[in-house]
């Protein structure tokens, strides 16, 4: 067992256990914390795939930004409602069946597909490649992302305005 595989399987376990905890915990706040754990484990997986830039972005935006926003939202709504929000789940059995079926279907697809087994060697700097790609091949979606952020900003401002 190489270090890589240990790392990989360890991260995988943490990831999946955290994910299960996210969906099954009653306490919403705990769910958000477990989500943070999942996102961090994902960043680790990115690292194992030699995608350092993405790991960094994942930690910054996801584990940092999204979790923070979620925590704020819970705090605000908890304030509104007045007591700790507890989770109860509905339709567990059907959800389980559907998800399980989808999982099985996906695994079947993977098993049958002809996929490469070994990784090719890393050629060059992936971060540089991403940057170049962003600004040449995918420059249009890149610019549109800017527009999207502008729209989101405006939307957030609109939501945040005081009631007149």
């Amino acid at each position, binding site marked *: 067992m190489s270090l890589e*595989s240990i790392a990989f399987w360890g991260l995988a376990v943490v990831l999946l256990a955290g994910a299960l905890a996210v969906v099954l915990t009653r306490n919403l706040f705990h769910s958000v914390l477990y*989500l943070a754990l*999942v996102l961090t484990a994902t960043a680790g997986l990115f690292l194992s795939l030699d995608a350092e830039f993405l790991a960094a972005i994942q930690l910054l935006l996801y584990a940092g930004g999204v979790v923070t926003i979620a925590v704020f939202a*819970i705090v605000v709504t908890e304030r509104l409602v007045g007591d700790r929000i507890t989770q109860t789940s509905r339709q567990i059995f059907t*959800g389980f069946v559907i998800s399980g079926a989808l999982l099985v279907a996906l695994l079947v697809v993977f098993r049958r597909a002809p996929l*490469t087994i070994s990784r090719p060697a890393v050629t060059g700097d992936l971060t540089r490649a991403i940057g170049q*790609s962003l600004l040449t091949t995918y420059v249009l979606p890149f610019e549109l992302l800017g527009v999207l952020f502008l729209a989101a900003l405006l939307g*957030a401002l609109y939501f945040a305005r005081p009631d007149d």
Partner: protein
Amino acid sequence: MTLQAYLTIAALLFCIGLFGVITRRNTIGILLGIELMLNAVNINLVAFARYLADVSGMVFTVFTICITVAEVALGLALVILIFRIRRTAVADHLDLLRG
């Protein structure tokens, strides 16, 4: 690690996220489930990008992360607004579209 391993992990994560979306009663809980699903997609994209030596997968991941962030922000803002009006966080109570 084989590509299939990564894909399997991503699939598992995706289905757990789907399970969460379907079963959670609280709206924020649903959003968390969506997060998990999007994360699984990201893992998938990066794994393919790495094993097929194509950097576009990673570029797509950048895009999805950005869009997800915007979506979560606004989604949670909506949830807060709804709470202000309807005084409830439970998704079951938000059934105005009922036929």
